[in-house]
């Protein structure tokens, strides 16, 4: 029973870390419509910066500055946000595809750097001895896991409510205005590139924070934690939950991670140990197909329908004037289109 509670705490912590990354992505994609194809890169930047800042001094690689964990997290956020700001500055005046290609490149290059710059990042060996909150409780895994869960929950809640607040602030309204009708927003004197770069940087910073939180939760990081697979997982979580909704992100993370961990356990039971690497690639096939199917069938996500119901209700008085069901169905069909006007601008 106690084992089960411990495992549940561990499971939920992982889900919440994914939710944190997803919240950053939702700010970039759901609210602002910016496609980030290199999530893993920003998460890795955060994880490595925080690890270097907080680990005890070591001859194996650079750093080991032995700073408090909170400073590590702050540094992680700043570094990832700076990287995102630079990328945003370079690409956001161009077509939206260029951001996708460049961020994809970022994740490749970050992986390359952490793998090869051994004197800074420890290379393939990664970085160990990352200080963990509640390390003194590690003898009793239950308390240790619950303590970590509490910390990660607190961080997620803070980010969640800050983002909800931001979305309804004047700043969030500008982003929404840019998304709904870019020309109108620009004609009101809003600098599209400036606002988008801010949103992209803030989203990148949240991803970096998530990477740092995870590094301190596990206590050890290595380059192969940050492969394109991570990017895919987060995207699927966002799309399943319905992009645009912060709550959807958390629910999507829960569902996708439950499927992922469950199917992992199943392949563990069904396949012989030497075939498990084999079976793991089938898991990835499934997640790729899942992403495509959702985009085809329910582009607003499995739970994206809820907000649309509300929209329909709001539209219904208009429907009584005669436009009727056709108007509400057309809003539904246009919903994914409305989200992304920037790609139409050329």
């Amino acid at each position: 029973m106690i084992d089960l509670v411990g495992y549940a705490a561990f499971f939920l912590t992982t889900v919440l870390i994914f939710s944190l990354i997803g919240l950053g992505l939702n700010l970039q994609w759901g609210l602002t419509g910016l496609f980030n194809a290199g999530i893993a890169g920003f998460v890795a930047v955060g994880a490595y910066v925080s690890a270097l800042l907080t680990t005890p001094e070591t001859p194996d690689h650079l750093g080991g500055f032995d700073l408090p964990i909170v400073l590590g997290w702050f540094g992680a956020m700043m570094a990832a946000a700076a990287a995102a700001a630079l990328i945003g500055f370079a690409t956001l005046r161009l077509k939206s595809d260029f951001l996708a290609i460049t961020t994809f490149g970022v994740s490749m290059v970050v992986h390359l750097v952490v793998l090869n710059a051994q004197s800074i990042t420890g290379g393939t060996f990664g970085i160990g001895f990352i200080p963990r909150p509640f390390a003194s409780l590690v003898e009793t895994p239950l308390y240790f896991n619950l303590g970590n869960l509490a910390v990660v929950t607190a961080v997620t809640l803070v980010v969640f409510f800050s983002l909800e607040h931001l979305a309804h602030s004047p700043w969030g309204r500008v982003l929404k205005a840019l998304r709904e009708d870019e020309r109108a927003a620009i004609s009101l004197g809003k600098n599209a590139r400036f606002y988008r770069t801010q949103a992209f940087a803030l989203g990148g910073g949240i991803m970096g924070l998530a990477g740092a939180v995870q590094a301190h939760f596990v206590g050890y990081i290595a380059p192969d934690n940050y492969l394109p697979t991570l990017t895919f997982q987060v995207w699927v979580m966002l799309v399943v939950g319905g992009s645009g909704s912060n709550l959807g992100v958390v629910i999507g993370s829960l569902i996708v991670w439950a499927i992922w961990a469950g199917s992992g356990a199943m392949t563990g039971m069904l396949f012989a140990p030497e075939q498990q690497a084999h079976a793991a690639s089938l898991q990835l096939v499934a997640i790729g197909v899942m992403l495509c199917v959702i985009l085809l069938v329910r582009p607003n996500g499995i739970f994206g329908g809820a907000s649309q119901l509300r929209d329909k209700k709001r539209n219904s008085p208009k429907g009584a004037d005669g436009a009727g069901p056709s108007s509400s169905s057309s809003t539904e069909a246009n919903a994914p289109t409305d989200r992304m006007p920037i790609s139409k601008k050329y």
Partner: protein
Amino acid sequence: MQFVVDGLLSGSMIGLGAIGVTLTYSILQFSNFAHGDLMSWGTYATLIVVNAILQIMGPVGPLGPLSFGWPLLLAMISGMALTGLLALAIDYVLFARLRQKSEMIIIVMASFGASMALRSFLEFLFTGQPTYFSHAIQIATPIGLGIRITPDQAVLLAMTAVLLLAVHLMITRTQTGRSMRAVSQNAALARVVGIDVKRVIRVTWLVGGALACFSGIMIGVLLQIRPTMGLDLTLPMFAAAILGGIGSIPGAVIGGLIIGLTEAVAVEQIGAEWRIAVSFVILIAVLFIRPTGLFGVQER
């Protein structure tokens, strides 16, 4: 001077793939992240056909000083056709449906998912271990200026040149090529003057898939065959297409050659492990300095 040959070779691989990227981008209006995976699938398809021919015919000697015989040439043609058909199939199942109802960036995301599924399925079928078309070792012959080249390399470079000439003639001299250019410039107007846009899209996938497959075979013959070979080339291909200017086929090839040659210099001077970073640095530089690329036109 050896970097010239190395650079031309990897530049050809990148450039051939970049043609497909630039064509899909200019005609279908999206950047296809699954293009590299067409390359890997084509190479494995060719490998299967080669092995099937060898099963039926028994051992076949190589052609002259080359490491491969006629089975590979035959398999190459069928592999290129199969890759084109695979591209058509993916378009039919996924991209065409999304084109009708979704925003372009959703298609980019779908190509991302498709890439993951395609690559992981190859890993499932063939494991992550590298395989080879042939285990024969080739002796490089000096051809002056301190450059050495193997017979395989020379023949593949010549074949690349022939393929590029064929594509160039097709785009500039045939009615199909004219239609493709028309659609890439203005799809709506092209439709108004009676161009069959669906046919143009089909030709685009067939050409892009076939060239990707040839590029993959080149990698397979000269280096090794792995499920991630396409993923590794995705960034260089995009960088080449953007450097050359989106929509320009000569641009894609020249962009590929520039990246290939720069990579070869970087490998000599800095170290092979930093190869991918070259594409990224060039990509960022182009985006800052001249986002339309070398031969690009200002977008409307």
